[in-house]
């Protein structure tokens, strides 16, 4: 399981996102209240870039005319056709079994640990003082 250092942790503060390229893939990393999630950036519908989509909440209803808004900032909407995906799982709202984004294990590691290897820092140097975002590709 190759692990890739893709960003400094400080580059993706809570509420933000970052598009990275890892081993030829476009991967978007979201920070939701301090938790990181890494998903394929390419919408499985027509290929829109999810990193350019709007984040919104989960809207549900138990009865017609009711709107229950929860999980603010955890649903990403594709900028092309507005299909919704759950950032936590990568699953689409409307067809969660068949239409989903590849998700990747992502973690924050201290630079001191990364210097020891066996990590791939493709784009920048790692310093022992900082913390870094690491993605595992399958």
């Amino acid at each position, binding site marked *: 399981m190759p692990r890739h250092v893709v960003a400094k942790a400080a580059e993706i503060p809570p509420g933000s996102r970052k598009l990275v390229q890892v081993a030829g893939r476009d991967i978007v990393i979201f920070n939701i209240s301090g938790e990181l999630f890494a998903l394929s950036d390419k919408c499985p519908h027509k290929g829109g870039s999810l990193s350019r989509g709007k984040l919104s909440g989960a809207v549900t209803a138990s009865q017609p005319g009711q709107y229950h808004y929860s999980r603010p900032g955890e649903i990403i909407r594709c900028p092309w*056709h507005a*299909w919704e995906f759950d950032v936590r799982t990568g699953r689409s709202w409307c067809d969660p079994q068949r239409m989903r984004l590849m998700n990747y294990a992502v973690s924050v590691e201290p630079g001191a640990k990364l210097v020891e290897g066996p990590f791939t820092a493709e784009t920048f140097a790692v310093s022992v003082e900082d913390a870094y975002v690491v993605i595992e590709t399958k």
Partner: protein
Amino acid sequence: MSANGPYQGAIDCDIHPRVPTPQTLARYMDDHWRDTVEVRGIEAWDSISYPPNAPLTSRPDWRKADADAEPAKLTEATLDRFGFAHALCNSLFAVQFFRDENLAAAFARALNDWLAAEWLDKDPRLRGSVVLPIQSVERSVDEIERRAADRRFVQVLLLAMGEQPLGKSMYWPIYAAAERHGFTVGIHAGSSYHHALTSSGWPSYYLEDYAAQALGFQAQLASLICEGVFVKYPKLKVVLIESGVTWLPPSLWRLSKFWRGVRLEVPWLDRSPEQFARDHIRLTIQPFDAPPSPAQIGRIMDQLQSDEMLLFATDFPHWQFADDAMLPAGLSPALTRKILIDNPLAAYPRLGRP
């Protein structure tokens, strides 16, 4: 055709007794409304949905035999001849045209009582639809309640084009009453003619009128699903009667496709519009707008993705098929059996096992 033929035991979900005159219905009214019909001189109240001499309005052999004029002639032409177990009478007297909701309610009561007395009482195989005075939701509910004890009425009847899209919450008391009493909701081709038949205005020809009915059905289907009628009334079944059927797969495809992008508007839809349609929408099988090729019809059945949606119907006396070819070509024996018997029984809880 013997009584042991291929249609033995079938349930015909759409037949039309000849539309009665206002004078005939006046006999079923109270003193005030009977006088009203006479004093105002309401001598004719014919829908232009089925002009008397239009070929569609009556098949030539049935026209010649006057087969829709009385129960004995009707049963001889269809039920006895083919061995149907039941036939469901949908009255097309134009109750929906009236602007006065009180007059509409009086005619609806008379029409439903006329059907019971002059048709349902005459043959135990006949079943009926309760025609609603849709001009008033309250009076429509009254009429459902009034007829609920008579189990021979299995459906409440609306038209494909009316005052407002049928999913609107103003109509929900009708669906609540229907669900409470186990009535199926039937939507038949036709219009109140209170709005233009197309959203671009009035067409010129009868041909356009009849073809436009499919657009009316599409709009009602979308409204019923999107407004959440089937979320609110999960036991409700809606039958689209004389709709043409084959417009359905592309219409559902479009509805489900765009739902994925604008689901936030209607978050009560916990599954796709096409799944709601498969769960709650049924369609009578005449007319069936398709080429007469078994291969084409097989493709359409695949697109429906359900063998439970189609209900047998002759649309008697309307001229929808020649000879005895009442079903599309190439249906399997198992599917034929479902369409003829099992699906109608499932769609109409009040029908019971024959």
